């Protein structure tokens, strides 16, 4: 297998995604990600010189709405799924790690 993704890459991406991985998980994901990339590498054999880069999977553009105010939802609805809230505010735990 072509090892495009190193274990450092996996650790880095996991840290960005705030995931804590065990040693076996790091190994497993490194292998899996490489295998996925290897599979996708098949595409590199195609000649894409005349193909326009794809910005979106669906071939549509300019889906727009007019600038007209629509009703918002109320506090209670907005906060219904929030783990914590207070007086109409969402409340989040400590942000700074320092």
């Amino acid at each position, binding site marked *: 297998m072509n090892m495009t993704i190193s274990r450092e890459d996996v650790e880095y991406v996991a840290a960005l995604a705030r995931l804590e991985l065990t040693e076996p998980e790091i190994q497993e994901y490194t292998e899996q990600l490489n295998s996925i990339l290897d599979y996708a590498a098949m595409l590199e054999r195609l000649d894409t010189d005349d193909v326009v880069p794809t910005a*979106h999977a669906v071939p549509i553009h300019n889906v727009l709405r007019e600038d007209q105010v*629509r009703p918002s*939802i109320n506090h209670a609805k907005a906060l219904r799924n929030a783990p914590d809230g207070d007086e109409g505010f969402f*409340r989040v735990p400590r942000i700074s790690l320092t």
Partner: protein
Amino acid sequence: MVVANQFEMVCGLEVHVELQTKTKIFCGCTTEFGGEQNTHVCPVCLGMPGALPVLNREVVNFAIKAGLALDCEIAEFSKFDRKNYFYPDLSKNYQTSQFDLPICGKGGLEIEIDGEKKWIGITRAHMEEDAGKLVHSGETISTSNESSVDYNRAGVPLLEIVSEPDMRSIPEVLAYLEKLVQILEYTEVSDCRLEQGSVRFDVNVSLRPFGTDTLGIRTETKNLNSFSSVRRCMEYEVARQARVLNAGENVVQETRTWDEGQGITLTLRSKEEAHDYRYFPEPDLPPLVIDKEWVERIRKTLPELPAARRARLQTLGLSAYDAAVITQAKAMADFFDEALTYYTDAKTLANWVMGDMTRLLNSNQCSVVDSPISAKQLAELLQLINKGTLSGKIAKSVLEEMYSTSKDASMIVKEKGLAQISDEGALLGIIDGVLAANPQSVEDYRAGKDKAIGFLVGQIMKATKGQANPGLVNQLLKEKLA
């Protein structure tokens, strides 16, 4: 600044401008400022699973308009991207922004410092959503165990305008910002209310020894919201970097924050902690194709921009300085132009607008938009001076009365009997009285003391409470004394 002798400053700016739409960029929630917390929200701007964003057409219109005013290329094809980061000011864990294909490409504007003109390049401008507001439980974010979030502002449309690192001094930076904000205000894409955070500045600064071409290591100070903060922050940052370099050390590339109270910048995050935003195309928003016809339609809505307006006023006889003062704010320039349709002497009008009118507005902390005196009313007052109904001096007091009552000048003149006395018969009677009461002055004048006539004129003006037509008084008096 001492450092100016050793180092050259290099500065580029990112300016975030809130666009003045009625609704947010991707949903129909109102953009109104204030409002009780989390009442201008919906599943889209709260990032609820399954909610789909739809782009507000007016945001695109405003972005094109601002781009054209800033001489930018308008991209035929642009798209949105997700900028991924974990911070609760947005509930989605990403900000919808534009990465590699922004709506506006290269542009720029001209500044002038001490008569020297300089072009400041604009790299790009892109559309994105604003974030919510955090209130921390403690004094600062690092001493807070929890924070409260209000998402009313989340999703308000922003245009981020990125300049080239073309500025070499603090006055250049301030001139660029003033010009930029002035142009945006003219286009009316933003209310440009700095005190409400409608415009926010990120400042990138580095130093390098004079004569070198390579750029020094820069710092970025984020989220400044006034010109004075920008100036103070840059003064501090330039001095700090010079100290670091003079000590033989390297400036650390990092993001800093401005502490307004202490007047210093502080490390927010270093390069090692720098965000890796992992941009990728926003799958929920199809791309944007802007054809020439759309761009031309918007171009037609562009107002006369400040530079063109200044030039036009100068052709009407205003000095460069006067033209700059009048066009500083669009509202004042509009007031001036409206008055000009009723009163054509631009120079006299400018004197009144810049002088008494501005003084009255300023002392009442009133903006010209809310002026109790309309442009048409001011023009009528000046016409009364031209017709000889009012002397310039009395017109000033009439203007004050107009300001407090919003009445027309002619009505005040009628009610208070302020009209200038230009009736020869009436004036002759008064002149006779004054001459009879002051035989010594009459004798002095006839003996060749020209000054004596001034005293007599003063007495006549006093007797008429300043309402006598001064030209006519002089003429009649000389005839009498001849």
